[in-house]
């Protein structure tokens, strides 16, 4: 968005308070949604819970196409539609709610750096695993991604998406990596996050920030999603403070909320996958 458009949107955002009927759109939970999208969606849900802003989760098969930037999740608030965690955080800030106001400049720089680390390594590793690892693609991704659509549309859409993701991987240099190297990167990232978290309850001590929401979204999804092998979740389980962190946030923000069944359903049913 250009600067002018962004300023305009911010002004519109600031004009109204958060409505009761705010909605978050994602793909179908049981049959369609993939690892990376689920992680992003959970991160946004966690963030909104932490800000104490009510939101309904609505599942639609064409959520990806409805989104203004092509990525899920997106929120529909009043008459505005905002997608992806970064812009949503700014939008919520324009409405007057912020989790990172209490941080000083150096801490804000650190927070942004760690968020980029998660996006750069964890999200890319998830995408790699879903779309570039042939076994996973054949057995999990293709069946799930096109499941709401009839043949041949389901195959066409999933091949198209796969081609797009592989192009991106090639551009950033991940196409040449093997699965072991990707898992190694995930391990490095988790190690860094674990070191940064240490024994604190949240990354910036007493209060959660958008970084906590993002890390929770990704790690919880990795821990509770059943893939071909358990290697990915094993890498995360190696760090006990990270698993404790996930459990803590789940208990504090998601338990007792019926509408937010994604976290609880994921934990109990291990998300039945077509296998």
């Amino acid at each position, binding site marked *: 968005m250009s600067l002018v458009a962004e300023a305009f949107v911010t002004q519109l955002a600031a004009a109204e308070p958060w409505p009761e009927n705010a909605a978050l759109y994602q793909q179908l939970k049981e049959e369609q949604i993939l690892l990376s999208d689920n992680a992003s969606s959970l991160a946004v849900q966690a963030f909104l819970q932490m800000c104490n802003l009510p939101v309904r989760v609505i599942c639609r098969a064409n959520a990806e196409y409805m989104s203004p930037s092509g990525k899920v999740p997106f929120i529909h608030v009043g008459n505005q539609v905002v997608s992806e965690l970064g812009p949503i955080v700014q939008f919520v800030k324009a409405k007057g709610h912020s989790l990172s106001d209490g941080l000083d400049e150096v801490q804000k720089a*650190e927070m942004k*750096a760690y968020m980029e680390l998660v996006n750069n390594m964890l999200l890319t590793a998830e995408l790699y695993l879903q779309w570039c690892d042939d076994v996973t693609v054949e057995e999990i991704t293709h069946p799930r991604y096109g499941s709401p659509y009839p043949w041949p549309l389901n195959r066409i859409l999933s091949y198209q998406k796969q081609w797009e993701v592989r192009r991106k991987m090639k551009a950033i240099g991940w196409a040449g990596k093997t699965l072991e190297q990707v898992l190694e990167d995930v391990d490095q990232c988790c190690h860094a996050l674990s070191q*940064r978290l240490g024994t604190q309850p949240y990354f910036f001590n007493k209060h959660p920030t958008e970084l906590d929401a993002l890390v929770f979204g990704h790690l919880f999804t990795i821990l509770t999603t059943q893939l071909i092998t358990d290697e990915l979740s094993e890498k995360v389980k190696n760090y006990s403070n990270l698993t404790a962190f996930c459990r803590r946030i789940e208990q504090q923000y998601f338990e007792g909320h019926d509408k937010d069944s994604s976290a609880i359903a994921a934990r109990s049913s291990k998300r039945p996958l077509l296998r």
Partner: protein
Amino acid sequence: MAAPMELSCWEGGWGLPSLHPESLTVLAYAKFSGAPVTVNSVNNSWRTLKGDLPVLVSEDIVISQPAKILNFLRKQKYNADYDLSAKQGADTLAYIALLEEKLLPALLHTFWIEAENYRSVTKPWFASRFAFPLSLYLPGKMSREALNRILLTKGGPPLYSLTEVEGQIYRDAKECLNLLSKRLGTSQFFFGDVPTTLDAFVFGFLAPIYKVCFPKVHLQVHLKQLLNLCRFCDDILTRYFRSTVSSHSPAGQDTADANLQKLTQLVNKESNLIEKMDDNLRKSPQHPPRKLTTLKLAAGGEESSPMSRLSP
């Protein structure tokens, strides 16, 4: 102890040992950790065709990406991060990710995609480093790769248009520079007084923006306002890359000034010589004063007086 190591990377210019951010990073790390690496400026091999630089060759092992090269050096006991705590090590990874996500697209854009910069600076420089057929093909290939990378990582899927993305990537880059400046504060390096991996990466990304003279330079202008980052780059250049710095003048502006100064000095010398010749001829008794065609560039007043004296 370690086998001799040879590093192949891009050449440098404008006071830098190399123009390529990744090569600069590896060079800086080698200097910080004291690794005895012989640097080989590559300009005409198949490696450049594959775009694999920088490359470290040690005995029979060939390693190509900066992160892997740094890992290898650490395993050979050349570790610049020895004194860092675990948390600082984690911070290093995070900040490197920030640099790659926010600063690298703008760097690529300034070098390879901004039309005026590419045509007048980048393409001629890179083309002049290669022999004839490669010089036509390779800069174009690198430019296309850079464009691809930016569009695929930053552009929205339905549109893939560059103009929308340009504003965003420069804004991100300026924000990233501000964040780095805040993090650096007043200390000499990012983690105290000793340079580490993070300093190598930051230097590798910042130095090309800081030093290379482009026609369209708004990122450089922004960087120059962040004085502590400029001081950081200059410090590293003078402390670790002194021999290459002394042979080039740092910025285009200074070169122009220096040239102007030299020209003025030459002109003054010429005019002094000519005046002396005049005086000598006037003083000599034997020969009538000859008409001299003076090539004076000085003020017209001086010209007229010897002419008037010469007329019989």
